[in-house]
Structure formats: C-alpha cells, structure tokens
C-alpha cells in the first residue's frame, strides 16, 4: 500500500512541490474511494474538500426543473475536483458524481486554508496551481459557450 505522501507527490497537481511541503498536506489528507454512480458531493453542500483524482472519472452535473440533468465537465485521473473550498461562502455549485470507480485523495479544506495562512509560500504555490486549473476550465467553458458545432460547415 502506497503512502499518502507518495500518492500526493506523484500527482501532476502537486508537481514541483518539495517533500516537506507535500508532508504538510498529508496531515490534511485522506484516501477516498467511490463506486460508479456515487456522489462526491452535491450542489449547495459545504465545500469542505479538494479532491485529487488518482483513478477514474468524475462528472460535474447540473440539474434544472423539468429538464434532464446535464454533465458540464469531467475530470479524469491526474486532475482535481473543486475550488469552491477556496472562495466564500464555501458551497459547491455542482454535483460531482463518480462515472467509473474513483480513487482520490480528499484534502480537508479548513486544514488546507489554515496551512496556507500559516505558510504564505505554500499558499502561493497552491494558488498558482488552482489558478492554472481555473484558467483551462474557463477557456474550455468559454469556447464551448460559442456552440461551435451548432452551425456552419456542411461537410
């Protein structure tokens, strides 16, 4: 069985962090597993964890009355789920559902925010990484908003 230290150290999200920094995060972390169809969290619940996906696929779902639920994004191994833990009121905006069996490391948000407050260098390193995730997700969302496949080319 591999240690949380090893699992976090080899995850792409934490690439470049030194061993002692990763050790700090281990204290906030726990291994979690979800069967296909299980939810990591629901919209409106407290955003109390960052999920570091090691294996499997997580879907971010949105539901609206009278309409079928839609998947607006997926996160695969190597990705992270959740940044609402970073911004008040710390509430999830989507449902997160395991599409397949998911193995992840859940990092407690209160613990993580406290460590960032104590160690600004750690805070900055984490914010850089989260900003990178947000940057790519926002670009993806903006381009998909254009509905490029919706019109135009005939064949």
């Amino acid at each position, binding site marked *: 069985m591999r240690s949380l230290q090893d699992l976090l150290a080899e995850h792409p999200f934490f690439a470049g962090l030194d061993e002692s920094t990763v050790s700090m995060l281990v204290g906030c972390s726990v291994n979690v597993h979800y069967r296909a169809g299980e939810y990591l969290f629901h919209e409106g619940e407290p955003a109390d964890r960052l999920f570091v996906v090691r294996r499997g696929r997580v879907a971010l779902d949105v539901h609206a009355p009278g309409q079928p639920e839609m*998947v607006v994004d997926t996160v695969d191994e190597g990705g992270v789920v959740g940044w609402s833990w970073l911004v008040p009121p710390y509430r999830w905006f989507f449902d997160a559902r395991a*599409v397949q069996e998911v193995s992840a490391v859940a990092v407690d948000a209160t613990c993580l925010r406290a460590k960032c407050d104590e160690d600004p260098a750690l805070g900055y390193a984490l914010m850089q990484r989260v900003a990178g995730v947000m940057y790519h997700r926002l670009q*993806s969302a903006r381009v998909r908003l254009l509905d490029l496949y919706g019109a135009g*080319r005939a064949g």
Partner: protein
Amino acid sequence: MLPRPFRVVATRRETHDTMTLELESLDGEGLSFAPGQFTMLQAFGVGEVPISISGDPAGPGRLVHTIRDVGGVTRALCRAREGDVLGVRGPYGRGWGVSDGAGGDVLVIAGGIGLAPLRAAVLEVAASRDRFGRVHVLHGARTEADVLFGDELVGWAAGSDIEVAIIVDRAATSWTGRVGLVTELLGGASFDAERTLALVCGPEVMMRFVAAGLVARGVPPDRVRLSLERNMRCGVGLCGHCQLREYLLCVDGPVLSLDAVRQQLGVREL
C-alpha cells in the same frame, strides 16, 4: 464544369442533421480522389455546394459524401433517396497528403462534421497501418448524439491499432465519456511531436485552438494541416469567392499547412 450525373445507391442517417449518401456514376466510371478533396455536389433545381469526400480512396467506384443539413441545398441533399440523381463536379482541391506522415505518428483531430473530410484520411492510414507509428483520432462533438461514425470509431480502435478519444461539449448523465473541449484530448495523446503529422478539421475557432495546442507540444507548424472553408462557388479557381488573401481555397486548399495560413487566420476581415 458540367456536372456528372450520379445515382444515390444508399443513404444512412448519421445523426439528427447529418446523412451519408453513397453514389455511383450513371456512366459507370468511378471517381478517384485523394483524402481531403471535395466535389461540388448538386441537387438539381436547388443548387450546388462543396462537400468533402468521406469515402474510402481505395474504393473509387462508389462516391461517398457525409452531409450536414445547414441550409436549402444541403437540406435537399440530405433528403435525397435511393434512385435520385445528383450532379457531381470534381474532385477538386488539395488533400491531406497522408503519405507525408509515413514513418512518424499521425494525429487526426476532428470537431463535429470535420470528421467527415478526415474519414478518408483515416481509412488510407488504416489500409497501410504498418507505414505509420502511433495514430490517434481525437473527435469532439456537441453532444453524445452528435458523435459521427460512432460504430466506425469503435472499429478503428479495436481493429486498426488506432487510439480513439471522444469528447463532447455537454452530455446527459448516461454518457460515461469525457466532457470538455477537443483540445483537452491532446493531453492524453502520446506522440513524438517532431515526427508527427497532424490533420485538423472543424470550426475555424476550434482549429486555431487545436493548432496552438499542437505547436505548444512541439509539432512543427508545417506538419499541422488544416482544412479551411470559405464560400466556394466555382470550385476551379475562377470566381474568387473562396479567396483567403493570396490563396484560392478551391485550388490551393482546402488543406493548407498552419505555417502557410497562420497570419491569414488572424486577420478578422478574411
């Protein structure tokens, strides 16, 4: 310039707005083409549009077109039934140049109906698979219902040693695949960038983003090929409607390398 009459011998619904037509010439002569070329396909009494050839280049006896209903002419073409006669001019244009990828890896990146012009290229690669290294087909679609050639994609992955990845803009919760932008599939593709030939077709905004992602991964711009589209009328370089600054896409394209058109793609008026 006169259209040759072709009879519709088979039709197949691909998605809610896309049909594949299989055509045979009335005079019995086939139509040889290079993957990436197009014909001017005419619904008599309605009009004529440029449509890429989506069939197998090794089977010139049957002309195959995959058409999306986006207007009056394409609607008429999509409604064509077995026995109907359509007009065909061509094939025209410069194709993908698939053989230039021999000895290296090949990336086929398609957005939406863009997979239709690329299907012929994939079939050419599959027919001589051992000439190429790793081959990836990356397909983005609006929803799972809009994924093109779904069964064939599965077949390529299973039988032709081709890595296939699909991603959709949004999906129902029954979808177990990826949701996001087609550029996100690049991260999961393993290829030797400097020896890769990348063939890209889809909405131009998508192609710009994909091209940027490929160049960032180290694929040389002259090894990134895009199938461009402008308003084509004559198909033979006379009317000028398809002009992209110094290029006439019906003759110089529709397939052009990124290094040839990078500047032009950035000019709003073009």
